[in-house]
C-alpha cells in the first residue's frame, strides 16, 4: 500500500504494537471494543490538529496557533449554536470559517513577510487566545443546541460521530498528501524550497494552502471539542499545539520538512492516546503518569530508530 510505503512508519508502528501488547497484559479492559471506541473518540481532536499541522511541518514550517484557534472557533461556534438560535450548519460553518481565517492569516504572513513561521504563529497564538477571551468575555459559552451536541456525542450506525469525522478527514488528508499534485508540491517545498520554486511551483500559494488547511482543521477540532463538552471555552486548547506536533514528530515527520506521512501521524496520535488511556486504566498516580509518559515517548522513538538502523 502507498500509505505505508516509507520504512519510517513501520518502526513507530512496531513501537505502537509493543506498547499496546504491554498495556493489554497489564490491564484486561484495555483490548475491549468499548475501550478502543473511547480511545479513538478521545484522540479525535488531537488527530484533526495533527493531520493539519502535518502539512505545515512537511513544508518546513510550524503552526503554534492551533490551540488558540481551537479556543476561538469553539467560542464562535458556541455563540452561533447557543439556544438553537441558528441551524447547526451555521455554527459549523462559522467555526470552520474562523479557523480558515486564522490559517489564511498565518499563511499570508509566512509567505509575504518572510518572518519565521515560529514567530508568526506564536504571535497569532497569543492574538487568538486574547480574541477568544474578548469574544466570550472570559466566560464559557453554554446552553448549546442538541443538534450541535450531537456532533460531539452522537452516534451514527453505532459509531460515535467524532470517530466518523476522524476517519473521513484521515482518508482525505492521506489522499491529498500522497496522491495529489498538491501533496507532491508540499514534499518538494519542504525538501528544497528553492529547487521547487525553480521548477515552476508556486511556493507561496502551496504554503498558504497548507496553513489554511491547518487552520480549517483546527477549526473543525474546535467545533468537535465544543460539541463534546457542550460549551465554548475560551481557555480550551491550551498546549494542544504541543501535543499535536509531538504526535506528528513521533510519527516520523521531520521537523525540518520534506519527509512524513499521515499514517505516521495517526499512529503518533494513537500512541499518545493509548498511553494516556492505559495509565488511567492502571490507575497510576498522576505524578508518575507524567514520568512514564515521557519515558515511553522517548522509548518508542528510540525503538523506531534502532529498527531503522538494523534494517540498514
Amino acid at each position, binding site marked *: 500500500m502507498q500509505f505505508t510505503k516509507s520504512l519510517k512508519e513501520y518502526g513507530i508502528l512496531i513501537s505502537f504494537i509493543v506498547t499496546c501488547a504491554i498495556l493489554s497484559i497489564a*490491564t484486561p*479492559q484495555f483490548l*475491549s471494543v468499548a475501550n478502543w471506541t473511547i480511545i479513538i473518540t478521545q484522540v479525535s481532536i488531537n488527530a484533526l490538529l495533527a493531520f493539519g499541522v502535518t502539512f505545515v511541518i512537511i513544508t518546513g514550517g510550524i503552526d503554534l496557533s492551533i490551540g488558540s484557534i481551537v479556543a476561538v472557533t469553539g467560542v464562535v461556534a458556541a455563540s452561533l449554536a447557543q439556544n438553537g438560535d441558528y441551524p447547526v450548519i451555521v455554527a459549523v460553518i462559522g467555526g470552520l470559517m474562523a479557523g480558515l481565517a486564522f490559517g489564511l492569516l498565518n499563511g499570508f504572513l509566512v509567505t509575504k513577510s518572510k518572518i519565521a513561521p515560529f514567530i508568526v504563529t506564536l504571535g497569532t497564538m497569543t492574538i487568538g487566545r486574547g480574541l477568544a477571551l474578548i469574544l466570550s468575555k*472570559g*466566560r464559557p459559552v*453554554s446552553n448549546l443546541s442538541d443538534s450541535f451536541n450531537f456532533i460531539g456525542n452522537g452516534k451514527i450506525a453505532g459509531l460515535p460521530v467524532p470517530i466518523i469525522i476522524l476517519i473521513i478527514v484521515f482518508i482525505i488528508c492521506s489522499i491529498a498528501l500522497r496522491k495529489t499534485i498538491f501533496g507532491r508540491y508540499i514534499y518538494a517545498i519542504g525538501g528544497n524550497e528553492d529547487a521547487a520554486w525553480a521548477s515552476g511551483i508556486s511556493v507561496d500559494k502551496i504554503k498558504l494552502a497548507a496553513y489554511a488547511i491547518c487552520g480549517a482543521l483546527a477549526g473543525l477540532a474546535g467545533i468537535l471539542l465544543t460539541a*463534546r463538552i457542550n460549551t465554548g471555552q475560551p481557555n480550551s486548547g491550551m498546549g494542544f499545539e504541543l501535543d499535536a506536533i509531538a504526535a506528528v514528530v513521533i510519527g516520523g515527520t521531520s521537523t525540518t520538512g520534506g519527509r512524513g506521512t499521515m499514517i505516521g501521524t495517526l499512529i503518533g496520535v494513537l500512541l499518545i492516546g493509548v498511553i494516556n*488511556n492505559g495509565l*488511567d486504566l492502571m490507575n497510576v498516580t498522576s505524578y508518575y503518569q507524567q514520568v512514564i509518559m515521557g519515558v515511553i515517548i522517548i522509548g518508542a522513538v528510540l525503538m523506531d530508530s534502532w529498527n531503522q538502523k538494523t534494517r540498514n
Partner: protein
Amino acid sequence: GPAEDDGKLVIGVTMLSMQNEFIVNVADEMQKKADEMGVKLITVDAERSALKQMEQVESFIAQGVDAIILNPCEVEASSPAVSRAIAAGIPIVNVNSETTAKPTAFVGSNDVESARIAMNYLAEKMNGKGNLVMIHGFMGQAAQIQREEGAKEILKAHPDMKLLAEQTGEWDRSKSMDLMQNWIQSYGDQIDAVFAHNDEMGMGAVKALQNAGMKDQVLVVSIDAIQDALQAVKKGELDATVFQNAREQGVAAVNTAVKLAQGQKTEEKILIPFQLVIKGNVDNFLK
C-alpha cells in the same frame, strides 16, 4: 503617578486567572463596586503564576498605588508579594484565598471548607459507605491542595467510603471527561460517586457518565457554582455544587481596600461562608 489621577484613589488588583469564570465574576463585582465608589482599579491577570503575581505587586508598589487587592495564586509562593507590599507601607487585601504571610486584611473563605461541605454532602447521600473517585485540579496549585485536604479529612471520618482512584483533570472539562470515560472502563459499576475539585471538571464527569448511560447511578459533586453548574443542578444532572459568593467577596474586598487606603481601621478577617447548592435551593443562586 497614578495617585494623581483626578485625585481618585487608585487600587492595584492582581487576579489569579482571568480565564476562570469564578475569578472573572469576582473581578467584575470589584469593578462595579469601584465605579460606584469612584475609585480607579488597575486590574491585571497573573495567569496562575506566583512569580508574575509578585512582579505585578512590585510594579504596583513602584507606581505608588494607594492599596492592593491580591487574589493569590499560591499559599506560599504568593507570600513574598504580600510581605513586599506591607514592607512598602501599602495596605494589601487578600481576596478569595489565603497566603502564609499575613496581609493587612483578608476577605474570602477557606478553600478547605468548600471540600468539606462537598464531601459531607456525599457522605450523607451515600450513608457513609461506597466507592468514589476524585478528580483533582492542577497538581500542586493552592486550590487543588486545599480541596484535596478537605476531602481527605472527611474521608478519614468515614472509613467505609473508599477512594477508588484519583487523578488530575487539570481544571479542564474535556480532560476530566476523558478521565471519567477511562475510569468507567476500568471500574464500571463500582463507582458510586465523583468528587471534582471544580465545576468544569464536574461537568465533564457528568457528560461522560451521561454518554455511558450511568448518570442515574452515580453522584457527582463539585465546587464553584458557575452558571453552567447551577443549570445542571437545576436539571438534576449535577447533584450538588458549592457556592462561593463572588459578589460579596468582590464588594467586601473593594470596601476594605478603600477604607485602608483612607487610613481607616477594618476587620482583619472578613469571612464569607460557602453554601451548598442542591436542586432544592438552586433557584436562589441562579441569575
